[in-house]
């Protein structure tokens, strides 16, 4: 069964305020402990030997010299891990296939990208470990490689997987292909739709893979003891799913692995899956010593998941009055070395801000010789939306319409039938557009070479499996144990606020703690913008259970039926004067004697939360283009988004701002650069340029609150939507500034200059 706790409007005292986050002091003083901050006596240093080739068959691996080096305590290769059959599991972005997972963490038959792990060593020092890596001999048969998604689709492209035949094509292909899957979504009659159009625009857009750019590289510490028990400290977005994945690839029982989550220095979708964790456990098992593995930034870039790069072709038609009558798209998304890109979700997001009768979206999931992609905030959506929102801007311009009015004319609302299946429930898209229209940003003056752009975004949001426990301590304070990682967004504060609101006690009387995998039932990853929605719902259930027990204890003390006791502002009170004249009992009073009146008062929720409300946002950006250098400066940026309810508005604003800044980096600067041999040439933050504080203005935010009816406080997920519109909004602003339509990302100075030169020639 699923769980949904319905929204009820009421006066709020704690929810909606801006208290300090429980993890704030530790973080600003440097005391917070991240993955690399944990150590154990006698620990070894683990390092990974990585492929120097983009694509090669492994003919042999000889590690005997490395194993003999003094100080080396263990070496592992493919032979130390069981091969896995095709078996799927959920892991943040869609599903993972364990046959691929085991080959991604340690190459087996072939290496499939520059940086693919081939062996790992544990030694008493880093220098010894590095020497050991140099002593390992790997014989490769180098194969042809393919980096670009367009090249990978060609008939003569090098094929990564000889056993990969395109799924979703009838009849089943007889030749293996880099196209792992073909999906088709749609509704209506696309041809008939285009026949009704007065204006048809068709464009192709190309984007590069970009990294999530989290500040903290992957880090873990594993301790495998002689009795087969494993402790693992690691920074991830989901310690329960990491435990499940490690158990599977190492053939260890789940109960024998305890994963202790550390503070997380950013994930954004990139820390849902295992990389070094099973290697560290295997090395610890072999050496009988704890093993610590910390990736370098170079390893993060070379071997952990970026999001897809893509080729996107979009054709749209509308009538003279701006009504969109047909939308067609082909999305060709890189999956990296193994199948499983975000193209299914991107396909469903492409047009889902608009109420369209005729839609057809074809998606292709394509393997290339790059690291396997991972989720990245609203996986895949920003790429497809870049194309669609740019075309809508062009349509509005050609028709002489205001770009917001054009969107309002076509906007999705409650009851809109989506082309991927269901009808939309209560949503706030139109509200965000109207707020944009009223915002002073929209009428602020612009100077020469300055322009303004608008774009919008949609994300589904999810709920899923969640376990939470609440204990009322003997002094009436409360400990809330949660199992979803606070991915630095401040969710612990939001959970404490909801519990404090329910119990009627001050915020600082609730201490939220992220429990390890032995403390709670299973929790799905913090992804899909589910944390505050699902764990918030679970925390409310826990609090309401505790309230029922508090009322029971008061009723027993007063010898009245429990229905005669209400809970109000942190006190048990008689429901009416008919119940009797009793002095209200505080939570502290009831908790003080709880041990002698029935035991600890607690609440538990082990739920599968459903009913996540979709999120919509509208962005406005002003840019200035330097015609001499091609540099684009962000002058002003405004994010307007429906949150359902902002439990902690400051942290909601932080999500809006963070997503927008990541989107700005994606739009303007970020790209992987591979050389002709398929080796990554910019695996570091000096050459892979993410925005820093001085690159962006203060991002203005407007919170719209259209409550999600399926959450007790009306919460919608908020973390995904803010990264969707920036690329398109900035492209539209660049056009407004200097009259060039950018269809390639990043919109970096060389590309802007080239586009300006091309425009000048015509």
């Amino acid at each position, binding site marked *: *069964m699923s769980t949904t706790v319905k929204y009820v409007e009421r006066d709020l005292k704690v929810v909606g305020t801006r208290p300090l986050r429980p993890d704030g002091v530790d973080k600003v003083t440097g005391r917070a402990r991240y993955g690399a901050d944990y150590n154990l006596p006698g620990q070894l240093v683990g390092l990974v030997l990585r492929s120097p080739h983009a694509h090669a068959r492994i003919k042999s691996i000889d590690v005997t010299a490395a194993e003999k080096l003094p100080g080396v305590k263990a070496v592992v290769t493919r032979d130390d891990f069981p091969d896995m059959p095709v078996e799927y599991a*959920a892991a943040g972005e*869609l599903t993972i296939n364990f046959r691929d997972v085991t080959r991604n963490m340690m190459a087996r038959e072939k290496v499939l990208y520059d940086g693919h792990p081939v062996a790992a060593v544990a030694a008493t020092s880093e220098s010894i470990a590095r020497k050991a890596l140099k002593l390992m001999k790997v014989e490769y048969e180098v194969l042809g490689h393919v980096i670009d998604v367009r090249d990978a689709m060609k008939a003569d492209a090098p094929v990564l997987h000889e056993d990969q035949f395109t799924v979703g*094509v009838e009849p089943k292909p007889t030749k293996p292909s880099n196209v792992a899957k073909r999906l088709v*979504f749609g509704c209506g009659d696309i041809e008939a739709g285009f026949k009704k159009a007065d204006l048809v625009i068709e464009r192709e857009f190309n984007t590069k893979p970009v990294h999530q750019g989290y500040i903290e590289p992957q880090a873990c510490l594993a301790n495998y003891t002689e009795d087969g028990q494993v402790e693992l400290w690691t920074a991830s977005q989901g310690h329960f799913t990491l435990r499940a994945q490690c158990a599977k690839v190492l053939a260890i029982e789940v109960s024998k692995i305890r994963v202790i989550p550390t503070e997380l220095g950013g994930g954004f979708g990139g820390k849902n899956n295992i990389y070094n964790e099973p290697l560290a456990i295997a090395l610890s098992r072999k050496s009988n010593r704890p093993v610590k593995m910390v990736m370098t930034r170079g390893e993060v870039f070379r071997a952990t998941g970026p999001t897809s790069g893509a080729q996107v072709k979009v054709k749209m038609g509308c009538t003279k009055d701006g009504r969109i009558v047909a939308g067609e798209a082909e999305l060709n998304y890189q999956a990296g070395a193994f199948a499983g890109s975000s193209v299914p979700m991107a396909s469903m997001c492409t047009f889902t801000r608009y109420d369209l009768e005729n839609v057809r979206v074809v998606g292709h999931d394509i393997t290339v010789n790059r690291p396997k992609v991972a989720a990245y905030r609203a996986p895949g959506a920003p790429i497809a939306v870049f194309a669609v929102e740019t075309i809508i801007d062009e349509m509005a311009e050609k028709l002489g319409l205001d770009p917001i009015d054009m969107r309002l004319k076509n906007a999705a609302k409650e009851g809109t039938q989506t*082309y991927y*299946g269901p009808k939309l429930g209560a949503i706030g898209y139109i509200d965000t557009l109207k707020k944009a229209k009223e915002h002073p940003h929209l009428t602020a003056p612009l100077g020469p070479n300055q322009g303004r752009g608008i774009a919008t975004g949609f994300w589904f949001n999810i709920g899923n499996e969640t376990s939470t426990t609440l204990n009322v301590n003997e002094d009436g304070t409360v400990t809330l144990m949660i199992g979803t990682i606070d991915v630095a967004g401040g969710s612990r504060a939001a959970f404490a606020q909801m519990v404090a609101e329910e119990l009627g006690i001050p915020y600082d009387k609730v201490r939220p703690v992220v429990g390890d995998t032995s403390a709670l039932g299973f929790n799905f990853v913090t992804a899909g913008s589910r944390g505050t929605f699902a764990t918030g719902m679970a925390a409310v259930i826990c609090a309401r259970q505790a309230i029922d027990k508090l009322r029971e204890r008061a009723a027993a003390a007063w010898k009245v039926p429990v229905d005669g006791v209400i809970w109000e502002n942190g006190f048990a009170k008689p429901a009416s004067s008919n119940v009797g004249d009793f002095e209200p009992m505080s939570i502290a009073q009831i908790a003080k004697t709880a041990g002698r009146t029935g035991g600890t008062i607690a609440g538990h929720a082990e739920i*599968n939360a459903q*009913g*996540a409300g979709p999120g919509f946002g509208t962005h406005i950006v002003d840019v200035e283009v330097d015609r001499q250098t091609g540099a684009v400066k962000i002058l002003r940026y405004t994010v307007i988004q429906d949150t359902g309810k902002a439990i902690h508005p400051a942290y909601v604003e932080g999500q809006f701002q963070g997503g927008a800044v990541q989107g700005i980096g994606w739009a303007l600067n970020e790209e992987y650069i591979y050389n002709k041999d398929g080796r990554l040439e910019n695996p570091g933050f000096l050459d892979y340029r993410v925005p820093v504080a001085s690159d962006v203005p203060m991002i203005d935010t407007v919170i719209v609150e259209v409550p999600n009816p399926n959450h007790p406080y009306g919460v919608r997920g908020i973390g995904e939507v803010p990264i969707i519109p920036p690329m398109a909004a900035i492209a539209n602003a660049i056009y407004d500034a200097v009259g060039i339509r950018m269809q390639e990302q990043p919109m970096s100075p060389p590309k802007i200059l080239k586009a300006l030169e091309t425009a000048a020639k015509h």
Partner: protein
Amino acid sequence: MARIVLASNLNPFAGGTTELTLEVDDVYRLFQALAARFPALEPHLEHEVAVAIDGEIYQDVLFQPIGPDSEVILIQKIAGG
């Protein structure tokens, strides 16, 4: 009988079928019935499919009730970063 609609991305695994009626009272039985009728769809049901029952989307909820007059739309499962 519940009205079952397969979103367009699932049609290829169901011989092009877009819609059918089935006598099922929960998602578990729905998946069983669909797997029996469309073997090519079976591998996709466990990990790739969510359902919208009378407009509400559900994921990983095998025992979610389906009413006799319900409309159930099978859609691509949703995740995120």
